């Protein structure tokens, strides 16, 4: 009874967007409460829909509920609009709307001082949420793409929220304007790939509906190399959206927006859309092990590189931004490794291998949900600190624990979770990710790549624990800085209450989901190939505990995490070790490489500038000097004026006409000749 009303889930937030957009000026807090209502409505409805779905007969077979109407047709191909509910959509819908509700509540405190700009803010975040919810329930690729791009638009607008009239002056304004453009263009590069992928699928399958494309017999009928091409192009879109290597550079810049926007982009929406899409396309991607190998390797590289860049960053939000990139890398690594094994298992009909692969899928999805909670908590916590101290530079913080107890403790919980401290949410999913990747290394000819990725992932786990606690100690412990003196104490209730609500989720949700509800996650890939979840059962508590604690490497990572936290403690809290000695006070090569983000931004700017503006200058020269120059030279030669074109008068119109006529006729002759050479009649 609720599933038929699924379309209300994105519709109510979009109506809030319209209402706030047009009438927000007259609403209290610029429409903030209405935005909260929209998100809350979506959240409640999502839970009801999910409950109904999980208890329905469609849950086990066929695993989804879909309904759609024809939107329009492209030739004989119908493009539909409708909903497609399965366990993945339920999961995404619930966490996105729940976290967004808390972020919107938090915003009422955080954005209180923004005046008339609040209307714009609340309208745009409502549209942002619409994008994510619409994406989760879409029934086909093109419908999904509409919401996908709506999120791209919102991220552009919100990152550029202070793209004019920045309270901190002209330089900050320029930075925000440039960051917004970069975010849109880099994701657009991925999006055109995704569009290309849709053309391939539409042509090969004759439909873009998930139900039609993911049908096993339909996929069997299509040339595998075209499926591979389509899958890789779709993953190109994911690389842009989820800021994976090599398109990872826009996300740190995107910190120019308000902190709440960062929380929204990193936790609930936008970058999660990429993970969602890979999970959604599992049946398609697992047709080729090479595709999944590519997904995994890109994820592993991103996880490692992003973590290195967080090691020495002084900006509290940027550290969190890099950690998002790194954690997203983990998710793709898990999905890639799991999918790789499933794909191999499907080729050899090896059910055991498929079951191991399914763990990768579960790990990836679980890490997506866990990350949503602890990253929302961390960003909102950092927003609370920034709100109170007026700075983002961690050197100006320090010793804030006494002044901001709630923020400090909740952020500690978030940090423990993301660092993979035993028994916190992040620990469970991270261990499963590492486990899956290690297994993937044993299979197939290219499996050794996963072994390399596994080593990188373990090093990343160490680095994650280090930079997260470096951040926490630098902010809340250690020597008080300039910003600490100006701190106005703990943030208002509307900001601390969301933190307090998020903290238990960040701490414990991972364990609850894994031990109680793992079946509801894993069933998302039931019927992929021959994979069948056992009769209504997940892996079970014992199974998971065995997986995690029977492996010696689990203890290795726990040891590394503890060591990293210890090092951070001595460096940044007790201050008994001077980090400056290790990096020659910032002059070592590696330190400069990290500060310059391995010189990626410079490289991209150079390439982008040359390929864009450089070529454009050439075209402009050809246009004004060669093409138009020829026309003008011909006309002035005949008109006999010899003067600049600006002096051309109506008197010699006939001569001018004659010249142009002559030029056209001769060019036309050239075209004819060309055309005969090109193989015409």
């Amino acid at each position, binding site marked *: 009874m609720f599933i038929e009303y699924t379309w209300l889930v994105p519709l109510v937030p979009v109506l809030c967007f319209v209402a706030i957009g047009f009438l927000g000026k007259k609403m209290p807090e610029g429409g903030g409460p209405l935005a909260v209502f929209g998100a809350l409505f979506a959240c409640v409805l999502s839970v009801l829909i999910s409950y109904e779905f999980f208890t329905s007969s469609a849950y086990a077979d066929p695993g989804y509920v879909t309904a759609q109407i024809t939107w329009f047709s492209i*030739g004989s191909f119908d493009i539909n609009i409708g909903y497609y509910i399965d366990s993945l959509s339920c999961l995404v819908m619930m966490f996105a709307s729940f976290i967004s509700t808390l972020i919107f509540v938090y915003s009422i405190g955080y954005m209180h001082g923004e005046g008339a700009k609040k209307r714009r803010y609340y309208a745009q975040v409502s549209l942002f949420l619409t994008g994510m919810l619409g994406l989760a329930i879409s029934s086909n690729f093109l419908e999904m793409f509409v919401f996908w791009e709506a999120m791209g638009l919102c991220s552009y607008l919100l990152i550029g929220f202070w793209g004019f009239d920045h309270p901190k002056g002209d330089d900050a304004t320029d930075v925000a304007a*440039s960051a917004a453009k970069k975010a849109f*263009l880099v994701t657009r590069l991925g999006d055109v790939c995704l*569009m290309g992928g849709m*053309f391939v699928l539409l042509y090969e399958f004759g439909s873009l509906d998930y139900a039609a494309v993911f049908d096993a017999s339909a996929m069997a009928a299509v040339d595998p190399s075209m499926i591979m091409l389509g899958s890789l192009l779709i993953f190109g879109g994911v690389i842009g959206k989820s800021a994976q290597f090599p398109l990872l550079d826009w996300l740190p810049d995107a910190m120019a927006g308000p902190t709440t926007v960062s929380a929204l982009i990193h936790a609930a929406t936008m970058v999660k859309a990429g993970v969602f899409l890979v999970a959604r396309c599992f049946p398609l991607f697992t047709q080729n092990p090479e595709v999944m190998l590519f997904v995994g390797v890109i994820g592993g590289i991103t996880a490692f590189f992003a973590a290195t860049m967080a090691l020495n960053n002084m900006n509290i939000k940027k550290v969190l931004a890099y950690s998002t990139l790194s954690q997203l890398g983990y998710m793709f690594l898990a999905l890639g490794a799991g999918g790789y094994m499933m794909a191999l298992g499907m080729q050899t009909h090896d059910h055991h291998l498929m079951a191991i692969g399914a763990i990768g899928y579960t790990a990836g999805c679980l890490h997506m949900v866990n990350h949503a909670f602890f990253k929302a908590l961390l960003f909102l916590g950092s927003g609370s600190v920034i709100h109170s101290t007026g700075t983002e530079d961690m050197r100006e913080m320090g010793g804030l624990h006494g002044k901001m107890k709630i923020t400090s403790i909740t952020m500690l919980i978030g940090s423990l979770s993301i660092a993979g401290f035993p028994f916190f949410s992040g620990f469970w999913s991270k261990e499963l990710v590492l486990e899956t990747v290690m297994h993937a290394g044993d299979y197939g000819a290219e499996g050794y790549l996963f072994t390399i990725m596994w080593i990188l992932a373990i090093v990343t786990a160490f680095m994650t624990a280090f930079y997260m606690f470096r951040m926490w100690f630098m902010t809340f412990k250690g020597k008080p800085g300039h910003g600490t003196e100006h701190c106005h104490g703990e943030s208002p209730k509307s900001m601390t209450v969301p933190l307090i609500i998020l903290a238990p989720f960040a701490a414990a949700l991972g364990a609850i989901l894994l031990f109680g509800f793992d079946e509801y996650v894993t069933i998302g890939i039931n019927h992929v190939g021959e994979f069948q979840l056992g009769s209504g059962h997940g892996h079970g508590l014992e199974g998971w505990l065995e997986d995690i604690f029977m492996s010696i490497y689990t203890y290795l990572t726990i040891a590394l995490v503890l060591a990293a936290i210890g090092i951070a403690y001595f460096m940044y809290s007790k201050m008994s070790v001077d980090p400056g000695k290790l990096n020659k006070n910032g002059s070592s090569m590696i330190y400069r490489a990290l500060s310059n983000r391995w010189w990626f931004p410079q490289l991209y700017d150079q390439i982008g500038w040359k390929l864009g*503006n450089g070529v*454009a200058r050439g075209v402009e020269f050809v246009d004004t000097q060669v093409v138009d120059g020829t026309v003008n030279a011909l006309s002035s030669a005949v008109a006999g004026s010899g003067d600049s074109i*600006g002096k051309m008068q109506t008197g010699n119109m006939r001569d001018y*006409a004659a010249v*142009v006529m002559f030029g056209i006729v001769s060019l036309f002759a050239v075209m004819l000749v060309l055309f005969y050479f090109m193989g015409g009649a």
Partner: protein
Amino acid sequence: MFFEFPFEIPYLLTLLLVVPLIGAVATLAMGGERQKYAKYVAGTFSGIAMVLSLVLLFTPDLSVYNESYTWIETAGVRMSYILTVDGLSILMVFLTGVLVFLSTVFSAREHDRPHYFFALLLAMEVGLMGVYMAGDYFLFYILWEVTLIPMYFLIAWFGGPRRHYAAIKFFIYTHVASLVMLIGIFAIVFGAAGGGTVDFSFAAVLAGSAAFSTTFQTLVFGLLFFGFAVKMPIVPFHTWLPDAHTEAPTAGSVLLAGVMLKMGSYGIIRVCLELLPDGAQAWQMTMVFIGILAMVYGAYACIAQKDLKKMVAFSSISHMGMVMIAMACLSDIGIQFAVFQMFAHGLISAVLFMVAGAAGHNIGTREIPLLGGLAGKLPVFAAFMMFGFLASLGLPGLVGFWAEFGIIFSFYEYTVSIDMIWLIAFCLITLLLTAGYYLWAAQRTLFGRLTTKIDLTHIHDLSRPEVVALGATCALIALFGLWPDLALGFIKDYASSLALTLGAV
């Protein structure tokens, strides 16, 4: 259709010509003291014309409005007054009606000889409507030429500093192209007559076209294609367009980009593709090449432009290149979406040129390097500019995206059929470049630090008529974007029947 207009208005198509014509004369009479009322007269007549064009949209069977009278019949030559509307032309007629009315509204503050100005707009409407409705080659050619004259005077009398140069360049380019086209028209009309009565009507020529040999088709296709394509325009015969746009007044630019460029692609479909399917096959690769060139070249040229209006003009070249490759596919989908893109680009370019024009009036300059950070000072202007930019760069949910998606898909089908899938990369690169030049322009005009290079004391946000005109156009862009079938439904049958002709070769 969810709503059908209940009556049949007698002589509706003739009224679509006569109403603007009377309006033009009436407006012209509003000289001297009565100048300030000219806009109301013009608004009334163009409003009536718009409503009449709207009636057409809600008519289930368009054939009831066909009008056919023999006009001149002597010595074996018959020229007729035939007006007709079908799936190809109905959206263009609607677009003309809407854009002439909205550009009249937008120009409400025109104080320089307004009676001439508005009379020229209405006169242009006569020609534009006529071109899209004509069912006889003689009538078609006359009305085609009729559109040139008001546009020439709009540029030459109401244009910017280099208006004479631009006006002459515009006139000569398009006039010479239409002479070439005229030769082509004579060829098909006399060819179809085959020694019998020379009948200029579309139907008679179509009936006689079955006898055209492949060689004849190929040669004549070249003539006609060239005549039409210069109007679209195509690289390298495009340089008249940026100059004409830069100098033309806003309303002139809106009609030039919104409706007049479409005459070219309309002609290619109506004449070249309908009559000369063999010729189309022979020229297919050339059309693809020309389309790709226009698309990529236009997009790159946009990046380098400093004048906002010139950038928009080059973006028109790029977007019309998309229409070209869609037509070149010679397929059902290609034709359907070529027409849809003509319609979509008509609406979107209207917004873009209105915004660029408003920058000229309200800020005092359109030079991008002189602007910056204006979103805070001019919020309404900024909102419409962003809307136009986003629509033009193909944001899903707005009308331009569906058109581009369909076009690139039809092109994909074509590239698969000739085993050159990589050609699709040009389309994708164009999409990326389009986003690039628009967002870069937005960054330099609306965002970033507030400019200090111009005097900001006299800048002002959009006036009420400007907001009304822009708001209405944007509403249409959103409406057709959320519900593309509203427009695609008209084109569908026409496209599939034409594709049958083309495929039967």
